[in-house]
């Protein structure tokens, strides 16, 4: 979901060093002031989080390695669960194992759909374009591989999310890494460590929610709207605050006003947009079916030769891994919060369902974007990001950029709604529940929408991206310590299936 321009980040870093001098010359504008205030902190945190080691001539951020290594270890530990139990996952989503008496409760499908609406977004459209424009078609291969490995991380975190959730007396449920870190590690005799990791996770999650899950989304959505309405000449150019205000009011009406009907409309439109996007992609791919073989050849050859790519094979690999991790959030822990609400007696069932998430997000949607870009021949046009994807689809359907702009705004909106919830859960974990405390966070969240849309806050975005990836540090430490618990859950679940205690109802 989050795509980062390393070049832009370093440019911002240079800019922020020069800014104090520039600012003395004239009255500093508000966004410059905010940038100045935040840049020193943001630079340190971003520098730490995205600490990169040079590998084969390109910078490799260690945090991406941290995510991919965890995904690989979990894949091996659970014996390639993502391939062995893929069919079982589909059958769970279809409701084959759902008891009819549980009708009216949250189904596996609903938990998956809600979690997906939080992850499918800009990463699938823009992030992939960045990956193939820098890493070449070969980056796609590594992206798919990372997506497949990430399925094991999702499986683990979502199983834990359900197992250690809180069920309140009034029937509400609340789960996520903060609960499995604190409760799970307490069970393992490490209550202190669990508490610290849970608090670190919550703080980072709040940062990620208002940053990457909010300001970044508002900012990119506005940029895309300006682009389709005429770029710099657009009547909207420079009135980001207005766009932000409208967006903030709509978000506020949903999260503060509790007007779920707007959320409902979005939840219906977003899958629809996703379907349009995938259908358009498929039409382009099928109508150029003769070129698909060639595109896959480019993807495979590019993956192992790195021809024409800065950094060769390693360059392609890094780009692919990075975008996959940014897009499907496997190992970050965010999805476990949404998945925890499902109605099931067996936590591991939600784990199986959750492993479909990186598959749909990365292996299907991202791959399709990459194929369309490769087939369209726009790869060497010098474009990148949303503009590249837009141009690639426009080569087949001239009207597509408009649809894409609408999709970007809606994806941004649904991502904001999901993250407002993730942030709120972390906030209430830290300060306790209560109407007043929740309103404070929600108002702050809406304010951030306006700020995000109206300003070019490079350092703030940098900071929030860092916070989202920082969530992976406590979360993955927890996954390593708690993976035997998940293995235990798997064993007892399959014992019940074999004994016939759990069986298909359809």
């Amino acid at each position, binding site marked *: 979901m989050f795509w980062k321009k390393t070049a832009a980040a370093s440019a911002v870093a240079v800019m922020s060093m020069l800014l104090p001098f520039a600012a003395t010359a004239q009255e500093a504008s508000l966004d410059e002031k905010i940038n100045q205030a935040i840049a020193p902190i943001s630079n340190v945190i971003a520098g730490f989080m995205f600490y990169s080691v040079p590998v084969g001539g390109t910078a490799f951020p260690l945090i991406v390695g941290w995510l991919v290594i965890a995904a690989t270890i979990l894949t091996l530990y659970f014996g390639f669960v993502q391939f062995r139990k893929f069919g079982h996952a589909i059958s769970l989503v279809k409701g084959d194992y759902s008891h009819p008496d549980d009708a009216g*409760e*949250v189904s596996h499908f609903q938990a998956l759909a809600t979690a997906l609406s939080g992850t499918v977004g800009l990463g699938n459209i823009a992030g992939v374009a960045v990956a193939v424009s820098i890493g070449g078609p070969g980056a796609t291969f590594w992206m798919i591989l990372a997506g497949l490995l990430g399925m094991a991380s999702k499986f683990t975190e979502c199983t834990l999310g359900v197992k250690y959730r809180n069920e309140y007396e009034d029937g*509400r449920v*609340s789960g996520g890494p903060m609960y499995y870190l604190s409760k799970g590690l307490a069970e393992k005799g490490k209550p202190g460590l669990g508490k610290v990791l849970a608090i670190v996770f919550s703080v980072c999650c709040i940062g990620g929610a208002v940053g990457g899950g909010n300001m970044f989304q508002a900012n990119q959505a506005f940029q895309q709207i300006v682009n389709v309405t005429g770029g710099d000449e657009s009547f909207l150019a420079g009135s980001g605050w207005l766009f932000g205000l409208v967006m903030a009011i709509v978000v506020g009406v949903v999260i503060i006003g509790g007007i*779920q009907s707007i959320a*409902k409309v979005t939840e*219906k439109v977003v899958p629809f947009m996703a379907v349009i996007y995938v259908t358009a992609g498929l039409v382009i791919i099928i109508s150029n079916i003769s070129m698909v073989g060639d595109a896959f050849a480019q993807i495979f050859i590019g993956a192992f030769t790195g021809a024409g790519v800065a950094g060769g094979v390693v360059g392609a690999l890094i780009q692919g891994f990075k975008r996959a991790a940014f897009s499907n959030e496997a190992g970050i822990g965010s999805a476990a919060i949404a998945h925890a609400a499902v109605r099931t007696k067996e936590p591991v069932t939600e784990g199986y369902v959750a492993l479909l998430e990186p598959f749909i997000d990365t292996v299907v949607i991202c791959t399709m974007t990459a194929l369309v870009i490769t087939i369209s021949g726009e790869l060497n046009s010098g474009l990148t990001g949303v503009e590249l994807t837009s141009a690639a689809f426009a080569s087949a359907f001239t009207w597509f950029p408009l649809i894409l702009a609408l999709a970007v705004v809606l994806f941004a909106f649904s991502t904001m709604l999901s993250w407002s919830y*993730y942030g709120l859960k972390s906030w209430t974990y830290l300060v306790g529940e209560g109407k007043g405390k929740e309103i404070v966070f929600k108002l702050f969240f809406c304010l951030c929408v306006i700020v995000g849309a109206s300003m070019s806050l490079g350092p703030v975005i940098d900071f929030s991206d860092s916070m989202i990836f920082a969530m992976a540090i406590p979360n993955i430490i927890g996954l390593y310590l708690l993976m035997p618990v998940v293995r235990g859950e798997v064993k007892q679940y399959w014992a019940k299936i074999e004994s016939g205690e759990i069986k298909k109802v359809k």
Partner: protein
Amino acid sequence: MTDQPILVGYDGTDAAQRAVDYAGKRASAEGCAIHLVYVLEWSPYSFLSPQELEDRHKRRSEELERAEHTLKPALDTLGKLKIPVTSEVRYGHSGELICAIAKEKNASQIIVGRKGGSALGARLLGSLPLTLVQASPVPVTVVP
């Protein structure tokens, strides 16, 4: 006296009340029981926001409680007529569920009320009586 009950679709509206009154007369005449079904429309494939996911279980308990409360007057009315009456509240697609329950309970017929919506609306959106007329395994009576 037959052991096949009459199945009545009920949702607390005036139309449903008319169906209950009519079914009461039929049941007295035939000397059979009445089974009231209250279906809460629900699809396991609908989309919910994260907040709705969290509240779902709580909401469901509240909805079930409210439905039982809504059923009360109908149960009382029929009880006064000395008709043996049972009821259930279920989540799902009303047409499919009522047909399924009719089979399950071996009902002799289904009686539902008609809200009197326009023909066009019913054609576009579908209506419970129309669905039942097309799919029901037993005779269907629609009370205007």
